[in-house]
């Protein structure tokens, strides 16, 4: 199998797995228990909290472990009970659907448009601010097209305006440098399985002094903001996985950039009329979103799957998912073009040989689909 869908999830790192296993076996104490068996678990959580804080320029007391990005995003958004929230039209569903739920409760939401590269305009954002604006939530990097938003500029403006600022950094943390002070954010959310940690674990940064309403009540774990017995093993894996990503960020970034460049140029050499979506100047290193004119992205994804290659598409006929990517539509693509797109996302375990196989398989599958459509 060639796994080229690292924006969806990543393979757990050997070190993260190795370090989490003892907390699923012999070190199973409840971190809230006051005997040594529990204290060992508690200490492991606090060690991970320090690793995370160090990785994003925060203090340990500002890190809250969660079940992942969706929980973190929902928690931040749900803390706003009235007034006005500004977000963008290309956010992850966990932000957009939380906003829809708040709208039903009477909160006003502004969904900012993006340009053809997926960038939010600071001018639009400034003009959207009202006297009752309580929160702005803009993602750090988009999951479908990889565009990195101007979070630092937005953060500086909002900081002066005294408006709370959240960024969904699920795709960014562990892949590009992230510093909460440099970004001027009040809240930041992330998920371990996007950076080679285990699934079901994430974290939330909450700047000291800003409000947050818990989603889960109970034993007051996680500084009182997220009750429930902690996922100790997952938290341990998160800490080690993030530490590894930070330590190896430069060589990994260079490697996946090479894979992306090789893939785009290799495909373009055989299929010249492809359209690459996103912002080439400010972009996550491993993500490529490509439109193949006249080739259904869903069909292409399935034909690649038949050859053991995993990529993703924003369109599908599954009843569980919507038909067309809201992100690609927001870029100004037609519905038809959006259906012709696939996302290839490389990670640190991919090789140049795999990228070459992806190029060959994509071109071959496009030929088969286009050849059949010509007959049909």
């Amino acid at each position, binding site marked *: 199998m060639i796994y080229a869908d690292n924006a969806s999830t990543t393979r757990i790192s050997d070190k993260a797995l190795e370090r989490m296993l003892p907390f699923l076996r012999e070190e199973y104490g409840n971190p809230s228990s006051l005997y040594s068996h529990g204290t060992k678990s508690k200490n492991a959580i606090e060690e991970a909290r320090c690793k995370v804080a160090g990785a994003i320029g925060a203090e340990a007391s500002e890190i809250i472990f969660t079940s992942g990005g969706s929980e973190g995003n929902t928690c931040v958004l749900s803390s706003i009970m009235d007034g006005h929230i500004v977000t963008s039209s290309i956010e992850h569903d966990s932000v957009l659907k939380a906003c829809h739920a708040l709208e039903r409760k009477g909160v006003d939401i502004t969904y900012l448009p993006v340009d053809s590269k997926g960038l939010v305009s600071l001018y639009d954002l400034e003009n959207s601010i009202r006297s009752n604006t309580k929160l702005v939530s803009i993602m750090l990097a988009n999951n479908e097209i990889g565009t990195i938003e101007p979070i630092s500029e937005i953060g500086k403006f909002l900081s002066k305006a005294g408006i709370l600022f959240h960024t969904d950094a699920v795709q960014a943390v562990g892949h590009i440098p992230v510093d909460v002070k440099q970004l001027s954010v009040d809240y930041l959310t992330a998920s371990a399985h996007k950076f080679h940690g285990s699934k079901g674990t994430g974290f939330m940064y909450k700047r000291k002094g800003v409000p947050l309403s818990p989603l889960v009540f109970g034993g007051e774990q996680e500084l009182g903001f997220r009750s429930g017995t902690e996922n100790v093993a997952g938290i341990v894996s998160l800490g080690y996985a993030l530490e590894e990503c930070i330590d190896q960020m430069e060589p990994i970034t260079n490697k996946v950039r090479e894979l992306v460049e090789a893939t785009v140029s290799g495909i373009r050499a055989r299929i010249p009329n492809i359209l690459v979506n996103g912002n080439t100047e400010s972009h996550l290193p491993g993500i490529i979103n490509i439109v193949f004119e006249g080739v259904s992205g869903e069909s292409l994804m399935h034909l690649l799957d038949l050859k053991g290659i995993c990529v993703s598409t924003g369109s599908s006929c*599954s009843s569980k998912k919507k038909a067309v990517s809201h992100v690609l539509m927001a870029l100004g693509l037609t519905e038809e073009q959006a259906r012709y797109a696939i996302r290839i996302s490389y990670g640190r375990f991919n090789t140049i040989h795999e990228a070459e196989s992806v190029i060959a398989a994509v071109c071959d599958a496009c030929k*088969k689909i286009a050849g059949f459509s010509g007959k049909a």
Partner: protein
Amino acid sequence: MESKVCYVCGKEKLTKHEIGLTKKLLDKNTKCFYCLECLAEYLEVDTEFLLEKIEEFKTQDCELF
């Protein structure tokens, strides 16, 4: 409803799954279909593999199957 025929070998009365596979893997708007064997040959995979995929598509609630 008019029965569908494999446009390669002429096999008649294609099943819902054969029609669904052609739509799913090649073109959802097609009026032209493959039987399981001809589709497997065109895509260079074996028929067992395509049958496994049908079961996967069913679990994904794909309305074609």
